[in-house]
């Protein structure tokens, strides 16, 4: 081949993809003890969900709340998306919250 640039690139990239996938598999396997430990936490604490978006009960416990809360708002209503999508909300009005007594 006189112009091996692209072929070389493609071969190299395929190799990289394979290596990444392989490394991923190794990683998955290596994390097995950790996964077991996490399962033990789930089992012992009787957890049902991830602690991803903790701001709304329908994201912290998507199945735990009301019958249809996770999708109470129309799914494509972007600003009502669970825990917000792009921007954090503005400052919360303190008056509606109980502040600790001094």
């Amino acid at each position, binding site marked *: 081949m*006189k112009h091996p*640039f692209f072929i070389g690139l*493609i071969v190299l990239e395929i190799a990289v993809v394979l290596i990444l996938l392989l490394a991923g598999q190794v990683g998955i396997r290596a994390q097995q003890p950790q996964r077991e*430990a996490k399962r033990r936490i789930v089992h012992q*604490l009787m957890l049902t969900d991830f602690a991803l978006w903790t701001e709304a009960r329908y994201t*912290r416990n998507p199945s735990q709340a009301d019958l249809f809360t996770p999708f109470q708002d129309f799914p494509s209503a972007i600003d009502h998306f669970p825990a917000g999508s792009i921007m954090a909300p503005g400052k919360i009005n303190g008056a509606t919250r109980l502040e600790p007594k001094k």
Partner: protein
Amino acid sequence: MQRHRKILEYALSSLLRRKYKNIALIAVFSFIVAVLSSVLFLTHALQTEAENILVEAPELIVQKVAGGRHDLIPVAYTKRIKMIPGIGKVTPRYWGYYYDSLTGGNYTILGVDREIEGLTLLEGDMPIETGECAIGKGVAAARRISVGEELVLTDGKGAFSMFTVTGVFSAASELLTNDLVVLFYEDIVRLFDMPADKATDIVVEVFNDTETPVVARTIQRLLPDTRPIMKSEIIRTYSTVFNWRSGLVLTMFFGALVAFCILAWDKATGLSAEERQEIGILKAIGWETANILELKFWEGVIVSLTSYLTGVILAYLHIFYLGGSFLSPALKGWSVIFPSFRLTPYVSVQQIFILLFLTVLPYVASTIIPSWKAAITDPDAAMRG
């Protein structure tokens, strides 16, 4: 065979001749693939993680519904549920949310009724008596406390409660425990001012997985004001939430996608006068239409395959090595206490192949068709442009 190799070689040299145009095209194309696959990778990894870890979640949860909303459940219900055949332990669960006005974060407070041992992903110990707590990494960071220090919470009557931190969950379990505050259940009852005969919900152990739906139906008949939730439903809801999220990101991204399609279409279909002339010359010196299509096929395959692979590699590194940081606002959203995404690299080979077909095939088709049109005209006419 010889001629395919030579045509491939010529395709390669043609691509190099139009270096800048092709590199720009590959860069944009790779970026698009990278964004698409980032979304797919992240969603799939989270879903798989959820499936893998939540297998240990309770088989069945029973919640009370009042006025269409979740309500505290009478502990006495446990006795009635226990009478259903085929079920094991029935345990009331005490948990709730706590808004921390100090940090703006939302904690999940979970009650335990006994000492839990054997948790390896914990620095320190689980609480063994009232007045003690174990907290997630996110809570520890938000409150800047560690093992041995005090966690101050405000109870339902507005008074401070102090809990000694006996353990902090390690970073590896963040996805599960980040916002957790584990207390003894007496403490949680007092903190939330819950009636003594009520719990948050009830966890039911079912011996045989396949019988869970039957048990769920029995419970619903027995206790019409409750709502049994099966593990499969929880996992399904998770999938839906993640799909929703990726769908949303893809929607936001849709404009860019369309713009790229137009660009690619234009680049690929609109043969420049030079390219048309070249096709004419090749035909004039004896190339057949099939040879020219083969040439264009190779060009399209090389450009799209290179872009596809570059995009996939970038996405993989982005999601699994850089924690999805470039797209994090859109992919992950915000949260005051947010776990750092260290995702296990679960990748769906099927998804990778679907993406391959969705990127390479349309691109190759859109390069071949206009060339085919130029190639079937008389070389004389094609050369004139």
